[in-house]
């Protein structure tokens, strides 16, 4: 790999020639703000919040799309850069609902973070603000395009990763909008509700309905686990608050890069379905009656012993489960085999 020498904020670095300014800065621990950048998506350089000053360049190039080159001298927080960032943030604010207090994204919103970082308290520009109708037609998340900052990550995620291509930029100029083909509600589009767009939206434009008003990032504990549905094996963090799941973040560092489908992303609420079994049951005279664990387990053990004694171990059979853990499958077959039979199977074939 060829290397080049560059200077970022006075710091001399030797970096891979294939890096962008953003990557080079990251490697030196310098954080450059971004809205539209996502390492796995096409680089679009759309939001312009990552612009930096490069000695000799006429404009302020975007750090996320500009490759480093030998001898490049870069300032990531110069006065000119900060001014451009501030103006761009103010331009966004001129068009953004000021309802952070109740916005679901508070605390994990990049617009908030950067406004804080650059001390932008609102917008000096008065004028027209866009008004878009809320799209809450699907049961999993709603779209509030009034908060959209046009980073286009959702568009690219949907097209490049999912392949659904449900959303696109539409119209031009100030009337531009990120929406479905023919501007219909998401539910009528080719959307497959994977929620990947929701997970990359840097602001509160795409918000899951689950955990609404109950999911502040600082209130929840995040527990890494693996999806219980199909064999793809997506991993993610469950957001837990007061012993309830209130949300989910995909594991972007995982092997599947945080890609998920609708079942895994939104279909976890069966956990607290009211008809969960909460106690052992024993059938008496054709009816189930609640029992203690000891009663139930003793009964099971004694029945197994009884059948084995009377008909031999091969009169017992066990169906294990492709849904439970390795440890449980292991123990299950160990139990059956310890009883003296190999009659153990599961529904791998179904």
């Amino acid at each position: 790999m060829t290397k080049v020498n560059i200077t970022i904020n006075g710091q001399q670095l030797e970096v891979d020639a294939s890096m962008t300014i953003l990557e080079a800065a990251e490697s030196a621990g310098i954080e450059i703000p971004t809205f539209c950048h996502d390492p796995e998506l096409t680089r679009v350089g759309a939001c312009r919040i990552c612009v930096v000053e490069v000695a000799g360049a006429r404009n302020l190039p975007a750090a996320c799309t500009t490759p480093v080159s030998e001898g490049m001298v870069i300032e990531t927080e110069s006065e000119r850069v900060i001014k451009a960032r501030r103006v761009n943030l103010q331009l966004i604010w001129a068009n953004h609902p000021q309802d952070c207090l109740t916005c679901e994204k508070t605390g994990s919103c990049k617009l908030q973070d950067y406004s804080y970082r650059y001390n932008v308290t609102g917008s000096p520009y008065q004028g027209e603000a866009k008004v878009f109708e809320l799209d809450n037609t699907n049961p999993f998340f709603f779209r509030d395009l009034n908060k959209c900052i046009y980073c286009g990550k959702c568009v690219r995620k949907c097209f490049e990763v999912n392949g659904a291509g449900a959303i696109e930029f539409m119209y031009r100029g100030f009337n531009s909008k990120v929406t479905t083909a023919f501007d219909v509600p998401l539910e009528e589009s080719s959307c497959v509700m994977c929620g990947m767009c929701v997970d990359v939206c840097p602001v509160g434009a795409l918000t899951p309905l689950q955990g609404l008003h109950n999911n502040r990032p600082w209130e929840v504990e995040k527990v890494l686990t693996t999806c219980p549905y199909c064999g793809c094996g997506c991993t993610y963090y469950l957001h837990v608050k007061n012993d309830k799941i209130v949300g989910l973040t995909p594991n972007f560092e995982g092997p599947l890069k945080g890609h998920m489908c609708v079942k895994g992303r939104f279909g976890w609420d069966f956990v607290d379905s009211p008809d969960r079994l909460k106690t052992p049951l024993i059938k008496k005279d054709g009816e189930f009656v609640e029992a203690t664990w000891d009663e139930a387990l003793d009964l099971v053990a004694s029945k197994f012993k009884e059948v084995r004694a009377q008909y031999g171990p091969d009169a017992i059979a066990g169906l294990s489960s492709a849904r439970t853990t390795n440890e449980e499958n292991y123990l299950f077959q160990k139990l059956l085999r310890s009883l003296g039979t190999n009659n153990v199977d599961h529904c791998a074939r179904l």
Partner: protein
Amino acid sequence: MTNTINEVEDAKAIFVIGSNTTENHPVIGYRIKRAVKKGAKLIVADPRRIELCDYADVFLQLKPGTNIALLNAMAHVILKEGLADEEFIKARTENFDALKATVEKYTPEYAEKITGVPAENIIRAARIYAEAETASILYTMGVTQHTTGTDNVLSIANLALLTGNIGKPFSGVNPLRGQNNVQGACDMGALPDVFTGYQSVTDEKARAKFTQAWGVELSGTPGLTVTEMFSAAENRDIRAMYIMGENPYLSDPDSSHVRYCMEQLEFLVVQDLFLTETAKYADVVLPAVSWAEKEGTFVNTERRVQKVNQALKPRGKAKADWQIINEIGKRLGFGWNYRCAEDIFTEIAALTPSYAGINYERLGVTGINWPCPTEDHPGTPILHVGKFSRGLGRFSAVEHQDPAEKPDEDFPFLLTTGRVLYHYHTGTMTRRSKGLRKVLNEELMEINPHDAKALKLQESDLVKVSSRRGEVKSKVRITDRVPRGVVFMTFHFKETAANLLTSSHSCPTAKIPELKVTAVRVEKA
């Protein structure tokens, strides 16, 4: 899978057979579509015009139950056109001559008669697959759920061996495992003939090892498979049954028979999250916890062992499955005392060479692909590099056989079953999710517009579907996703339990039931 999920994206050709990937393995579906965007050629073989067909270079719309004829014909073309990887065949395989002799008669024209796929498409598909620098085959139940399931898989392997598309990146033979931990359940020996890591119960050495480790006498006779178990229950050879986290009443073929068999049992224990249709027949029901309330590991379809961590307290008095089994084991006098899932995992690793190097700490945020023999081994994303586990890759000479059920005058349609994106398996979980329920909460049997017209059916009309074993009522969705003469149902909905219709004819080797081919009658209800 012999290769990883992410590799699919960079294959130069992908052959998807009997897998509606975008709905059943959505994340792998994304990879396939991405691969196509990157220029990969895609071949799709399926009776239904599934979403992937929109991306395919060739769509082989075969009649259900004719996989072998198709695959043999592809092999025929590959050989005839000199597209085989001679070097690979010489160095790494055996039994090539038998294959050659068998596929000789499977000309594309001959296969066309059996499969209904135009000969020219078979030729195109064979060329695409064989000429690509790297080609990956993906398949699922559309291949295995047949009376010829095992042979189907073998003929898939033949193609990979013929072209050297195995044991290298972006290629391989890749069964996509349907459920989150089928791979793990198999690895753990939840199968009648093997202990963990596929160590055979008939192997003296293996048995001795487990006998010693577990301190019990072990049987050396392979046990019964699911379908056999139910028949044995019918014959009263099986008297007691323990079912953990499964719903065979809905998931297994010929439900009424399953139910009859369960009723013959003297004692049935069912352990589940919910009072499933199966649990209703139990004598004892043990409440288990969900994945979010316990610790452990799952193995995904690419053999990646990943961590499950406890996020919630157990609901009510429910316990983790392992705790329940542990308690039973104690009561049976096995002297067990597992304190946590990790204790069990340590034992697994000690007894299973392919897991020997794995421990909880190592799993981190990415998990590890087995085989991982030692603690400093990085895991094995790609199998069979340089050498097959059995030494040489063996070609298998297999012949086409008609499916066990054929349509006739009384049952003129072929029913094939599967899943849809928004639901999963028998719906025990997904149908308890508010959002998923809202998107779809009933069966919509797919039927071709021509057939619908002949039966005077309108969209969403109710029909009675009957087979030689039972009948259900379902609404219809009229769509040319299914060809004429074929109807498609899921098994997600207990109200329209498709498995009341299916048969338990199964593949003699793998004992997988032929869920993909059932002769049915459709009438307006």
